[in-house]
């Protein structure tokens, strides 16, 4: 009689395991609650087989067992994840548990504020503090310049469409159809990526294509197509193109689009995904956009036409190899753009060339410990060929100007190590360290972070994280330099899910150090932000969903060494939506966004300058002492989905800023600055369209 105990590697007894002899499985047995078994042995010329769900089957020749011993211990090993032909499950990033929100493709479509834009989908989160209606994410009071958008492992700088002086850039560069999921790190960007001192948005493209589909779309301002085609079982291609134009859109509502004369955009993208064998994946995404805009702009006392254009190309390519104990990846990116704008006596031309490459290895060291390490190279070259006003307030075409040509480049080489340790089923600890290898006169820096996630229960968790981060500013018209920036962050995030309700709360503090220039006059430094966030989502009556988001932000900053109130100091920042989604009828969504106005420095007086023939403004010494009027915006959107066999038609209409509220965006003055008036964010506009889908 052979007896023994079956356990796993953690010394836990395995109940109900099969124990039998290879030659006569019908005479087998099963283990009891203690993992114990007894089995009659007739011949020693046989093999003992022990098996259980989720474990590797163990074969032990009886000849190798000392039958006289008190009992044998059999240790079963858990089955490792097998990549077979059926499954391609994209592994989550190592830092996934430390992201605040994971956004799937459908979240984008069902988010009324997003209007189908992946980065705009972040807007409804309390952590989003974007105030200028653009798609560039600003998280927890930081400037968009400090927040990074990473696309398939490659940073995409300036992710919104042409952002110029006139608040364009309403949409991002990304099409939701190519996106699988997005991770939002509102604070403490994971150090698997560099060059961020605020937050990070990580975008991943599709790994699987469910069906072949052709989409044609026609809206008030665009015509487009999107084709998704399977190539082989696990490989596919997605191609799309859109042409945007303003004639009808602006023509029917010119009164509410006073600053737009016309615009034209053509963009096209191609996404290729290949699975080679069982362990290798390749992905290639290439995108091109050509934009032009003509409108009206005002700055100081000059009002006139503004012309801007931008051509941009980027490609992101990934190689992934899955080994038994890890994932090896190479991510590369190339970005090139050329842009220019003319306004009064300003003429700016900017060309950007970027190259990015990263080699990473994610090593599943133990069942509960993962380590990821790698190296990245980020090269950026900026050329500015500018004509700028000699006197900043004299911008008319005839006012004196000067020319300057600036070129700068930056090579960022960084090494990193990121560790995630599941201490037990409730507690996970992570740490990251990232250091540059200084090139030329670069300062040596080391970013570091920690994260602790405590799962009170499956539906309730706490995340405590902190760290020190470094990044470089992105050059712009006002500052062509790439300044080294730093931040210290600490954050506590809480989430709780109950039956039909989802609640999130957070508090954080950060100190952002480093000179950042976003206008002609000031260089911000030492921005200190303390914030509290609340978010709740409630699903009720089968088809209704309500979300409410509240943020409190206390912010201060330093200008020329003196402390002032921060631009994003808000006692409240509310975003709320009410949605009715009935696939048999229609979907309708109401949205409200409200907050106090941002702070600015008023012009209090002026003096006439005979040289320029213009009045020179005199700013208040008390910086940021004025505040724009409170911002309130109500939107409504309606859509209907009609399915006809392999065809589907989606119609939609949205009315933005229903009550035509004049939300102040920047201050303007008459010729001698004696009278102040304002520019406004988007007034009431209507937008509608139709999409035809054909599955084949």
């Amino acid at each position: 009689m052979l007896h023994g105990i079956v356990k796993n590697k953690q010394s836990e007894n395995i109940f109900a395991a099969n124990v039998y002899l290879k030659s006569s499985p019908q005479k087998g047995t099963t283990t009891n609650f203690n993992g114990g078994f007894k089995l009659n042995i007739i011949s020693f010329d046989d093999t003992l087989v022990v098996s259980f769900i989720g474990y590797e089957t163990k074969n032990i020749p009886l000849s190798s067992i000392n039958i006289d011993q008190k009992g044998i211990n059999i240790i079963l090993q858990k089955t490792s994840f097998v990549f077979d032909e059926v499954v391609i499950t994209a592994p989550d990033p190592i830092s996934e548990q430390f992201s605040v929100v994971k956004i799937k493709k459908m979240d984008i479509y069902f988010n009324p504020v997003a209007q189908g834009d992946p980065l705009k989908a972040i807007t409804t989160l309390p952590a989003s503090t974007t105030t200028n209606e653009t798609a560039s994410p600003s998280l927890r009071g930081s400037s968009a310049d400090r927040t990074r958008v990473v696309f398939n492992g490659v940073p995409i700088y300036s992710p919104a469409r042409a952002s110029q002086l006139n608040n364009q850039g309403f949409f991002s560069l990304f099409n939701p159809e190519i996106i699988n999921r997005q991770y939002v790190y509102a604070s403490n960007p994971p150090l698997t990526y560099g060059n961020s001192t605020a937050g990070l948005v990580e975008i991943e493209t599709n790994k699987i294509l469910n069906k072949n589909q052709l989409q044609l779309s026609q809206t008030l301002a665009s015509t487009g197509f999107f084709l998704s085609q399977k190539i082989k079982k696990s490989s596919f291609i997605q191609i799309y193109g859109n042409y945007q134009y303003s004639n009808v859109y602006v023509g029917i509502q010119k009164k509410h689009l006073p600053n737009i004369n016309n615009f034209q955009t053509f963009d096209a993208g191609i996404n290729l995904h290949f699975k080679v064998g069982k362990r290798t994946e390749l992905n290639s995404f290439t995108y091109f956009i050509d934009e032009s805009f003509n409108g009206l702009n005002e700055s100081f006392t000059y009002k006139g036409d503004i012309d801007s254009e931008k051509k941009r190309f980027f490609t992101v390519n990934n190689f992934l190899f899955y080994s038994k104990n890890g994932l090896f990846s190479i991510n590369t990116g190339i970005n090139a753009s050329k842009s220019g704008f003319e306004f009064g006596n300003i003429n700016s031309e900017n060309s950007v060339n970027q190259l990015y490459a990263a080699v990473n290895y994610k090593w599943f060291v133990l069942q509960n410990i993962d380590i990821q390490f790698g190296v990245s190279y980020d090269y950026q070259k900026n050329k500015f060929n500018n004509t700028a006003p000699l006197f900043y307030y004299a911008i008319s075409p005839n006012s004196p100007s000067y020319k300057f040509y600036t070129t700068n480049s930056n090579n960022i080489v960084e090494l990193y190590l990121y560790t995630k340790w599941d201490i037990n089923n409730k507690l996970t600890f992570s740490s990251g360290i990232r250091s540059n290898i200084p090139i030329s006169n670069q300062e040596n820096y080391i970013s570091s972070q920690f994260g602790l996630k405590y799962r009170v229960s499956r539906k309730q968790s706490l995340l405590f994280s902190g760290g020190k981060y470094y990044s470089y500013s992105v050059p712009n018209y006002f500052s062509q330099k790439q300044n080294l920036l730093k931040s210290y962050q600490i954050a506590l995030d809480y989430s709780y899910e109950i039956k039909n309700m989802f609640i999130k709360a957070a508090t954080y503090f950060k100190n952002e150090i480093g000179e950042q220039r976003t206008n002609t006059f000031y260089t911000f430094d030492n921005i200190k932000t303390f914030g509290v966030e609340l978010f709740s989502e409630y699903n009720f009556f089968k088809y209704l969903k309500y979300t409410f988001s509240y943020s409190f932000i206390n912010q201060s900053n330093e200008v020329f060494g003196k402390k002032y109130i921060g631009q994003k100091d808000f006692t409240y920042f509310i975003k709320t939506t009410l949605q009715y989604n009935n696939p048999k009828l229609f979907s309708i969504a109401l949205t409200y966004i409200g907050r106090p106005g941002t702070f600015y420095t008023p012009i209090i007086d002026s003096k006439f300058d005979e040289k320029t023939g213009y009045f020179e403004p005199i700013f208040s010494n008390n910086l940021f002492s004025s505040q724009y009027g409170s911002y309130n915006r109500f939107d409504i959107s309606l859509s209907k989905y009609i399915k006809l066999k392999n065809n589907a038609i989606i119609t939609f209409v949205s009315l933005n800023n229903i009550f035509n509220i004049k939300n102040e965006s920047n201050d303007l003055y008459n010729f001698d600055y004696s009278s102040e008036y304002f520019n406004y964010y988007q007034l009431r506009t209507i937008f509608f369209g139709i999409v035809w889908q054909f599955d084949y």
Partner: protein
Amino acid sequence: MIQVLFFLFLFVSCKGETLHVDESKMISYQIESNSSDTLLVEIQSKIYNAFVQGIMLKENKKIVQISDELSQLYEKENQRLIIYWRSYLQFYSSILYLKMGDEDSAEDAVDMGIEWLEDLEDKNSEDYALLAMLQGFGIQFKNIIKVIFLSSEIKENGKKAISLDSTNLRAYYVFASNDFHTPEKYGGGEKAEEYLLKAISLPSQKIVNSYLPSWGKEEAFEMLIKLYIKKENWDLAKQYFQEGVKEYPESYVINQLASKLVGK
């Protein structure tokens, strides 16, 4: 509707018949008696029989009794397999509540089973398959927006079940079932046939073990025949009806489809 909301077909499906194994292909297996685990011997049948009794008597006394016994046993032994069976029981408990017109309790019951399974660490193929099945059933109680997200979660859990054990017929069955009940406009109906054919080619259990699940094959036959009837592919419908009846001669769910095949 994204998903066919009522999985009531499961009312007579996924039944916990006495352990059924493909006798011709599989080895039979003698279980040696163990001490304190008698409740778990043939537990699948015990749960199903309690469910049938509940339907007939329109009460859930018996199923609650088994639930309590499993709960006590879990407190004593702390075995993860007991969690599996407790969750499996919740599925039938939910159907019972639904039949008794108590939709709230039905939702709570299936949610409880889902929660237990989701809480399990290092889920194996059987855990994922049952989780996907419970989620598929529970979807009928959910808000439409949640349904859309749950649908992809169910699909993902089905895939995980297959990836962890490519010979687990329940994994294929659940995956196929989700695909079968997902309207084409939401990407459904593409994989059901392939996965059901795979499911019926596999044994209910690789080694007969009365503690472990054996459901799914009979249901896979039933769904495959229904699929061919839906497609009006009468030859294949009849072929798999005959195969199904041969393997499960007393199956109500398969035999009831005969009327739809007469004269075709």
